[in-house]
Every structure is written in C-alpha cells, then in structure tokens.
C-alpha cells in the first residue's frame, strides 16, 4: 500500500500495526470463546481442541495484539523520525513473531510457561521490533520531552521494561535457575510483572500523549518515588503463598497498599474527564471505559494484595477476572481509543458502531466478573475445608455461563476491531486530511 502523501512515511506505517492489533484481538476472542466452551463442557467430555493448545494461544494472540497496538501508537507520535525503514523492519519482525508464534502453538509447540507462552526463541523477533520502536522514540526524545516529559518517561521506561523482561524470561535456561524451584518461580514472576507493568505504562503514556492536547509535565518527585517503589516491588504479591523470600512478600504488600494513591488519582482523572479533552463522543466513551476498568483493576489489585484476602482469591477464577479486566478493559481499549484517535480518516469513524462496541465490551466484562467472581469465591472458600472434588462440580456449574460473556466480548471487540481496520484501510484509498488535532504542541 502506498503511504498517504500528507503523512511522513514512518508515521503512516502505524495503520498497519493497528490492523495487526485488530486481527490479534479478533483471533484471541474467537480462541477465547472456544476455551470458554471447553471449560463449560461437562466433566468427561473432551473438548474438540485440546485446552492445552487453546489457553496459551488465546493469551499469546491477546498479548501480540496489544504489543502491535502499542507499536502503532508510538509510531503515531509525530515528528520523531521520518525514515520509514526502521518502522518497516519493526512491522516485519512483529508480523513474523505473530505468524510463527501462532502456528507453533497451534501445533502444540510453546514455552509451557505462564504468559510468555510462545517458543521463547521467537522473543528475538519481538525484542528486535520493540528495540526499533524505542530507537525511534529516543532519537526524537529531546523534542518529545519538551512537549510531554511525562509521556516520554512512561513510554520509554515501559518499552525498556518489556525488553528487560524478555531477557529475564530466558533465565530459566540457566542451570542455576532451572534447578532451584524457588529462584525459578520468583524470577519468572518478577519478569511477568515487569512485562505487564511495561505494557501498561507505555500504553497509558502513548495514548494519553496522543489523545489529549494538554501538555503533561513530569509529576512531582515525591509522587515519582512512590510510583517507582510500587513499580519495582509489587511483583511479590503474585505468589504470597509460595516459598519466595519473606522480605519480598513484605515489600510487595507495602508497595501494593501504596497503590491506593494511584486509585485516588484515577478517580480524580475520571471525574474531570470531559468531551472537550478528546473532541469526539466515541473517544470519550472509550476513554471513560479505560478509566473505569483501570479503577476496577487498581481497586481489586489492592484488595487482592491484602494477604488475608489473597489467601481466598489466589489461584481462583477471581484472579482471571482481574486479569481480563486489566487486559481487555484497559490495554485493549487503550489501543482502540488511540488507534481511532489517530485514524487516517477520522471523519469516517462510525461513532454509533464504536459506542455499541464499547457498551458490549463493558457488558461482557461485567458478565465475566460476575461469573468468574462467583466461581472464584466458591473455590476460594470451599477449598479450605474441602478437596477439589467437593468444590469443582459447583465451579463447573457456574462456569456454564462463561461463554455468554465470551459471546458478548466477541461482538463488542469484533465491532471495535472492524472499525479500527476499516478506518485504517481507507487510508490507502484516500489521503489523510490535514487534521493534526490530537498532537501536542
């Protein structure tokens, strides 16, 4: 496709990343629905596709979509570099990562580890693409720092954390790690925590940068230090109940409780969110949902990190609900919001379709929270005095409703993904108008 003449070549490539992201979300939703159906099947009825293929593939496609969307958002930041070749290489690396990763996992070849589910050799492709993204960002860092220092540190740190976590995810190959279960487990979850923290802050930074024309100054040093402490030490709360060193658990508990401050900050952000900031009704609806699910994620994250509550919720579907709320309600919707805000034909966006899509995604997440929440509570409470065979029949019964949430999610994400693809495909047919409204100057 030829780039529209009104955009620098590197920036015009962003639309390809948005299309890849939309495809990833759609595929992940479909695989997720199959996985939900496999869970809802009665005991003794084997699923048509092995769950050990469906679950990692579903996770992989969602993460791949989010990472493609992140790269699209960062490429959309204007004025950092006009050379299209790094962006083309970046696109090639990401496409190869997704294709090879999906094929391998469909064939049952994966890492067998949580979240970094792809054959870990493919991390080289992902690493290369993200490194090119960061190179482009840092080449224009001084100009960007003048416009939005807060945006620069969020995106820059987030991207670098993702790279470090990709290296950390390979440490289990060392004998000193592989042969020590506690070391292996603790490093693995530090890597996972850094990976998602990196994704979250880079997405939030890039979307906030692109969608609002208010300059974002660096937050105060005190707030920065508090945020930094939380970022560095929450990782231990993912497995309080494992034999990881006690001081890491205590640090994680303190860091997690400090996240209450972030909760209040997001409440203020939610209350002061106005249509005037975003310009479009559908963008406001998307960003309101992002802020709502961010609040829900922080609130449940803080609650679940209270050790006495964690004892009940850990290892149950309540954690899955929390993860889905964060990944879909926050990360995926940020990509949608940013991708639609940077659409090459913004006037072509159907606000009605986007609004319907947002409502369906919100409805789906609420249904999922209710269903998984109930199943999680049953397991968390009943397993104290009982065994798997005591609580699992009730959990299975509750999980029959899970595919309903999946269906609503497919409808909502399908609508949003189709819209994201449509307005970005149109860019090849017609040049983008001179609108640079969401840039920060």
């Amino acid at each position: 496709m030829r780039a529209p003449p009104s955009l620098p070549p590197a920036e015009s490539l962003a639309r390809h990343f948005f299309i890849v992201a939309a495809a990833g979300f759609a595929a992940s939703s479909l695989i997720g629905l199959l996985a939900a159906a496999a869970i809802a099947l009665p005991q003794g009825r084997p699923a048509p596709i092995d769950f050990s293929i469906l679950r990692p593939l579903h996770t992989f496609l969602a993460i791949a979509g989010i990472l493609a969307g992140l790269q699209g958002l960062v490429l959309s930041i204007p004025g950092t570099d006009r050379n299209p070749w790094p962006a083309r290489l970046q696109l090639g690396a990401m496409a190869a990562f997704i294709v090879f990763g999906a094929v391998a996992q469909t064939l049952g070849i994966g890492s067998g580890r949580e979240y970094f589910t792809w054959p870990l050799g493919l991390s080289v492709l992902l690493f290369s693409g993200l490194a090119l993204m960061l190179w482009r960002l840092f080449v224009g860092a001084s100009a960007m720092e003048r416009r939005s220092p807060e945006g620069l540190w969020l995106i820059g740190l987030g991207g670098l954390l993702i790279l470090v976590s990709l290296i950390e995810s390979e440490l289990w190959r060392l004998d000193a790690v592989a042969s020590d279960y506690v070391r292996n487990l603790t490093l693995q979850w530090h890597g996972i925590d850094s990976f998602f923290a990196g994704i979250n802050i880079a997405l939030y930074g890039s979307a906030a940068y692109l969608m609002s024309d208010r300059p974002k100054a660096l937050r105060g040093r005190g707030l920065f230090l508090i945020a930094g402490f939380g970022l560095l030490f929450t990782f231990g709360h993912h497995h309080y109940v494992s034999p990881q060193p006690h001081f890491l658990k205590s640090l994680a508990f303190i860091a997690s409780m400090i996240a209450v401050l972030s909760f209040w900050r997001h409440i203020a952000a939610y209350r002061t969110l106005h249509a005037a900031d975003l310009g479009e009704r559908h963008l406001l609806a998307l960003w309101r949902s992002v802020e709502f699910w961010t609040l829900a994620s922080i609130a449940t994250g803080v609650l679940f990190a209270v050790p006495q509550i964690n004892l009940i919720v850990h290892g149950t579907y309540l954690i899955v609900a929390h993860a889905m709320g964060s990944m879909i309600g926050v990360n995926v919707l940020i990509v949608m919001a940013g991708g639609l805000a940077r659409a090459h034909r913004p006037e072509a966006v159907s606000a009605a379709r986007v609004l319907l899509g947002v409502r369906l995604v919100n409805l789906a997440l609420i249904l999922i929270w209710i269903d998984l929440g109930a199943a999680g509570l049953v397991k968390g409470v009943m397993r104290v005095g009982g065994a798997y065979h005591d609580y699992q029949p009730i959990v299975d019964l509750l999980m029959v409703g899970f595919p309903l949430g999946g269906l609503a999610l497919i409808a909502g994400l399908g609508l949003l993904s189709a819209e994201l693809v449509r307005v970005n495909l149109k860019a090849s047919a017609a040049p983008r108008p001179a609108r640079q409204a969401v840039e920060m100057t």
Partner: protein
Amino acid sequence: MEIVLLRTALSRIVILLFANVMIIPVVFISAGHSGARQSGRMGSEAVAGQRLWQERTCISCHALYGLGGHLGPDLTNAVTRVGEDGARFILHNGAGRMPPQPLTPEEADRLIAYLSYVDSTGVYPTKSFPAYSFGRFEKD
C-alpha cells in the same frame, strides 16, 4: 545528586530501569538462599521432569502454588494427596477431563520426581484457620 537527576524524563527512566535490573540479582541470590523451604536444589530427574512439565504445557490446566490453569486441581501437594503410584496411575489412565497422557514410564517417573520436589517445598492451599497468609513451608 539524586534530586537533580529526577528533573528530566530521561534521568527518571535510567534510574527506574537500573533499579529494576538490580532487583534481578537480589531475587536470584535471596531466592537461592531462602530459609523457608525444606528442600535444596532439584536433582537431575526432577529438572528433567520440570522440562517435561513445560513441554507438555501442563500449566494450561494445572497450577502449582495457585499459579497456572484452573481446569484441573492444583498439584502443589499432589504427591502427598495421592502418592507416587496414584500419580502414575492418573498420568497413564487420565481422570475427569484429563485424557491419558502419552508418557513413557521413564517420563512419568521424571514428572513425578518434579512434583515430589515441589510437594516438599511447602503446603498449598491452606487447609485450616488460623491461616498462614504468607504461605506455610513446614510439613505436617
């Protein structure tokens, strides 16, 4: 000096990235000398079992210390619960949703060696109150 460094976005990135990377050796060293568990390093058979656990994507359906899938039971203390022979029987014959696993007897032994090792590191989930919020690592 640190306060001056915090004035720019780039310096903040460098500081937090450096701190994050420095945590990795701290975790590496402290987790390797954790006094909370009973077992030492895994034997070669258990390490091979761990590889098998990953290759067969057991984590999709099962969890250890609550980390993993929820379709099947948590296997942290599976060997204590059903014994090595019971575990071997389930692997070869399947149970509930789990189909029989295509494992050679040697592979089954490796997997059970890994699960036995994990079993010896602690107790999960808690089975009584007052509960141990930060886990329990001495065996009954």
